[in-house]
């Protein structure tokens, strides 16, 4: 029998024997009618869990993923696997008296973190509340407010994103350990391990997790090529994603994109383990609260008031 060679657009060659061997492993999924761009990828299929791979194996996987992504997006995509720095636990502060509800953070996040443009995926939801009524009345909040100008006189705003819980319910329920809390406190997802069961979305009390209901679409020119394996690298359809405090930036000593984008300085970020950090100063000197404290999730996301207000 002649040695037939199966090839796919990613340049991974599989001869017939290898193919049969793998098929015998119990999977015939290559027969599924998926578009050529998503032709079955054995290396991806057999990839190990991120935390079980050696540094060498991680490097290999990242090489392959970079190749795949660069081919698909027609630009050099870099995927970092930078580890957590020692003695760092990230925390976030948000000044509710300053926020003007402009949603610049939302779109800075989309751009930095390569969220799908169609269908639209946002990691930050800004909620609008009526002043002078119930305090945080989620049921009567408005997510799709659309005035000519912000801030509006009778309203205040509260952005919500992943609260990076110390006691994250989403991590507990994941049946495959595809999501976990990193040593610097960031809750991450391995997009190559997630099976897309969405149990974590049911478990999250903050509506922070997003599912790729379709293949994420981003114009090639808009793709941010500086990515992290556990963060903003391009995602697949059928997997869950979420805010990672911009892991690709914060582990490189930068602020998250939302912090930089905020025009009124409502967003603060820092190391909770450093007694001199801005975030520690805020927690110790301002009146802070965390969302849904009664659920005992221990968020590392603090809301507070300085009293300072944009007029």
């Amino acid at each position, binding site marked *: 029998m002649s040695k037939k060679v199966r090839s796919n657009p990613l340049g991974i060659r599989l001869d017939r024997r290898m193919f049969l061997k793998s098929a015998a492993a119990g999977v015939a999924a290559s027969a*599924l009618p998926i578009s050529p761009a998503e032709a079955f990828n054995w290396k991806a299929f057999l990839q190990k869990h991120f935390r079980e791979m050696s540094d060498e194996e991680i490097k290999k996987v990242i090489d392959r993923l970079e190749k795949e992504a660069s081919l698909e997006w027609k630009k050099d995509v870099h995927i970092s696997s930078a580890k957590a720095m020692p003695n760092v636990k990230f925390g976030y502060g948000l000044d509710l008296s300053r926020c003007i509800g402009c949603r610049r953070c939302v779109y800075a996040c989309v751009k930095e973190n390569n969220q799908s443009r169609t269908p639209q995926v946002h990691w930050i939801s800004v909620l609008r509340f009526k002043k002078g009524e119930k305090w945080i009345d989620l049921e009567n909040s408005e997510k799709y407010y659309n005035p000519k100008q912000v801030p509006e006189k009778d309203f205040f705003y509260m952005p*919500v994103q992943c609260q990076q819980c110390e006691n994250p319910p989403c991590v507990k329920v994941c049946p495959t*350990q595809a999501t976990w809390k990193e040593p610097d406190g960031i809750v991450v997802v391995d997009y190559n391990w997630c099976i897309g069961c969405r149990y974590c979305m049911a478990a999250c009390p903050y509506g922070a997790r997003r599912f790729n209901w379709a293949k994420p679409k981003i114009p090639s020119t808009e793709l941010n090529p500086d990515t992290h394996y556990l963060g903003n690298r391009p995602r697949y*359809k059928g997997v869950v994603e979420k805010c990672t405090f911009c892991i690709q930036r914060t582990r490189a000593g930068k602020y998250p994109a939302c912090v930089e984008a905020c025009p009124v300085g409502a967003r603060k970020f820092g190391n909770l383990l450093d007694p001199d950090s801005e975030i520690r100063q805020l927690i110790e000197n301002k009146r802070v609260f965390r969302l849904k404290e009664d659920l005992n999730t221990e968020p590392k996301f603090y809301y507070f008031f300085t009293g300072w207000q944009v007029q």
Partner: protein
Amino acid sequence: MNVFLSAIQSVFKGSARYYAWVGFLAVLIVLGLSAYFQQLEKGLITTAMRDQVSWGFYIANFTFLVGVAAAAVLLVVPAYLYNFKPIKEIVLFGEMVAISAVTMCILFIMVDLGQPIRVWHTLPLIGKMNFPASVMAWDVIVLSGYLLINVLLVIYALYRLAVGKEYNLALILPLILLSIPWAISIHTVTAFLYNGLSSRPFWNASILAPRFLASAFCSGPAIMLIILQLIRKFSRIEMDQKAISKIAELIAYTMGINLFLLGAEIFKEFYSGSLHKAPLEYLYFGLHGNKQLVPWIWTSLALNITAFVIFLIPKTRENFLTLNIGALLIIAGVYIEKGLGLIVPGFVPDTLGEIYEYWPTRSEAVITLGIWATGALIYTLMVKFALPIYKGQAAEGNK
């Protein structure tokens, strides 16, 4: 061995009606498959599920069917433990219902996954099963275990019937005994899967698991009632009427408990009146003008109460017409209550207070129908295979 060969042959031979039925199921399965391939290609965007309501019709059907599977134990207990002969003769058909139901459960989970080919990640050893932390890991174990137990029980029972010997209880009793708590466990674990989420007040109520069991022990036996009568009608095998009325009597008790637990839940939520009542309010009265599920849940309640009355009164529960009407009412009533009526309000309003009204798309409906047809086909073929063996033994017994 000859018995098994002729049994296999009998699967391929049948009346015109048998072929029509199998053909009908095959058409539904093909339609379902083609819709599923579409879903695979485009992603779950072909469903009506979104980030706000991230589980829908598939998980609703899954939940209902776990109940049906668990209810097979209601036949096992009187059959083997109390040696109640009329039910012992038909318990085989109950175990086959469990097999079909668990198979459908697995299919409903598979079609709900965003990355179905990665499902091996949930397995122990080769994957990275999150055991014991994730209740879903528990569910994988108990559901596959339950499937295995019932397959073994059915194979053993058929083997015994084929060689014409009584059960060797020393051999099979441990498995039968195990199947009883195991059946309860599949339902309890599935209830805990929702129950354990503090983010969803609608599910985070301790009454959820007891309600699950109570309603399962209504709908499961009700399905058994209908199926047993169909088998009796088409195969002309003898079935003691006592077995049927015993099952009907059981349903009366379990439906009573089910309605009581529902009342307890409604009292607690509406009387205390905290914000946690929002999902229940959405379900029964609508929230901020959104009332998609309201007519359905009241229909379900009316069906359940009517059926309860029918099964409570001995006269109507022994009359064939009213008995069957009652069984159908219960199946429909529990299907609504334990299906969309359980899943959707868990997500409405969502954790940030948004209301998204979910209703399954045509694609979801076709895939769901395809899976039900698969279950029905599996059951039909199993019964067709088992009947000659079953009847052969019965004939010998009469000699």
